[in-house]
């Protein structure tokens, strides 16, 4: 086949990250250019706890995700009530800040050399199970009361507010959930590669996740998963140089936005259980 185990593990990890971005961008219409830094928070916190303080993996993972959510709280509270542009700006700035901290606290984080010696714990079944679990959560979220409220906020925030939806609350909730997802993806990543450095978590990774959500179709979980798998494994199979891969993404996204703004699947889902239809007729995403 030519697909190695590591490609599959990385695909599972990016599915987890993409499900977070799906909640933020696909359902609620915000842009986070700092998802990768929540991933960094998760990876570094859990890695440091195990390497330096001898924590057990499950505890470290929980604390890592908690730290990610906490960071999400710090970034989210001031920004969700403002125009959506600010979310992108502030998360971008947050990413810069996190990278600066990781690079400069050399004694603790290893600086630009990275944190080494994290034990390899993540296996393919474990990663796959985690990806499925996160998909399960996102799927149920989308078809719950919360998901519908999020879609309302994305489609027309003012109208949603006037219907009595707590838009700021929904946005913050989604933001925190996504931060948790990203942090968990980071935990898995760190404990798979056994090594993390600040350069792994720059904003292009965050942008890549947004691109995947767009590629699949803005409101579709299936689409997000499909594009995470396609865009994650195809280049590995075809052995593109990694720099050309990003270029290819960009061209694809420009083409999609210009000629097929709904993405691959639009709002549609595979395996939609009957009676659980969310229709956004004529709604602008």
């Amino acid at each position, binding site marked *: 086949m030519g697909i190695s185990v590591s490609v599959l593990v990385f695909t599972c990890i990016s599915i987890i990250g993409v499900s977070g971005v799906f909640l933020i*961008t696909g359902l609620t*219409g915000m*842009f986070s*250019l700092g998802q990768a830094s929540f991933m960094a928070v998760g990876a570094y916190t859990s890695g440091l706890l195990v390497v330096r303080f001898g924590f057990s993996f499950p505890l470290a993972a929980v604390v890592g995700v908690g730290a990610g959510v906490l960071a999400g709280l*710090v*970034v989210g509270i*001031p*920004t969700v009530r*403002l*125009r*959506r*542009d*600010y979310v*992108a*700006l*502030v998360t*971008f*700035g*947050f990413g*810069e*800040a996190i*990278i*600066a*901290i990781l*690079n*400069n606290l050399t004694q603790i984080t290893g600086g630009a050399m990275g944190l080494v010696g994290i034990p390899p714990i993540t296996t393919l079944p474990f990663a796959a199970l985690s990806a499925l679990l996160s998909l399960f959560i996102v799927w149920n979220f989308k078809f719950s009361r919360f998901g519908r409220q999020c879609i309302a906020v994305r489609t027309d*925030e*003012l109208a949603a507010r006037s219907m009595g939806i707590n838009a700021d609350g929904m946005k913050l909730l989604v933001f925190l959930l996504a931060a948790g997802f990203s942090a968990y993806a980071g935990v898995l990543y760190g404990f798979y590669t056994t090594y993390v450095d600040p350069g792994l978590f720059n*904003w*292009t990774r965050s*942008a890549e996740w*947004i*691109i995947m959500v*767009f590629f699949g179709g803005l409101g579709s979980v299936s689409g997000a998963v499909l594009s995470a798998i396609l865009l994650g494994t195809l280049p590995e199979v075809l052995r593109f140089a990694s*720099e*050309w891969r*990003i*270029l290819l*993404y*960009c*061209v694809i*996204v*420009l083409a999609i*936005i*210009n*000629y097929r*703004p709904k993405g691959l699947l639009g709002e549609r889902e595979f395996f939609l259980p009957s009676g659980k239809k969310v229709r956004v007729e004529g709604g*602008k*995403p």
Partner: protein
Amino acid sequence: MNIQQLLNGLSLGSVYSIIAVGFALVFNILKFSNFSHGGVLTVTAYAGYLIATQGKVGLIPTLVLTSLVGGMIAVLIERVAFRRLRKSKSPVIFYFVSSITMGILLENLITITFSSNFYSYPKFFEKTILRLGDFQVAVTDFWMFVISLLALSCLMVILYRTKLGVAIRALSMDPSTTLLMGAPVNQIVVATFFTVGVLGGIAGVFLGINYTLYPQLGQMIVKGFIASVIGGLGNLSGAVMGAILLGLLEVFLTGVEGIGSGLAPVVIFLITLVFLILRPQGIAGKIIQEKV
């Protein structure tokens, strides 16, 4: 903060201000954060390097040629990434994704053509230090300040004294009424992008001189964002004030024991957060609300 730091901060802030203004202009007319401006910065920084080394010309011809290149790139970006979106009246988030994609695309084009090697601009001046009484100013810093000031004044003249300027300001207030008044909206948007590209070209050369050339140089656009947040999103004079403030702050923080240039982004991020909590509309502006 001493006078020396003040001078350095002013010159840094003036470069940030042309980035911030270029960013704010597009925000004004199309109401989205234009990330592709970072791509313009990267490409023009390299274009300026090629012009200066291959053409062996001085600073001013380099700036003029590069700003023309920048203008053309920005027009091209408008054509590829935004024209169809405007025609189909797409929602704002599509513009946003389009501009991010354009930014990444340009950055990667540069990475592929020049690989990740570092380049640096040739020295433009024999004398590198200018003495002002007891203080020293790098000659390039001095020119940065003067030229940025000149560029901003030109922009103000264009915006407030010409027909094009009136059209741009009208477009920023209400696109459909402007169209009804018979203004050629497409041409105005293209002209605005050209202007923004020219500003980006000047900023790109200065960034290239100030730092070494590397493909991620365009991420300096974040300085323009932060300046806009401090000054008020979409407000030109606010953007200039925010940028000068940011430049001063950065120079000052770099001098502080225990922060240095490494941790300065962290402090600036925290200050931005505080600003957003206390005064989300920025120094100058009214906050732009979504209209029904």
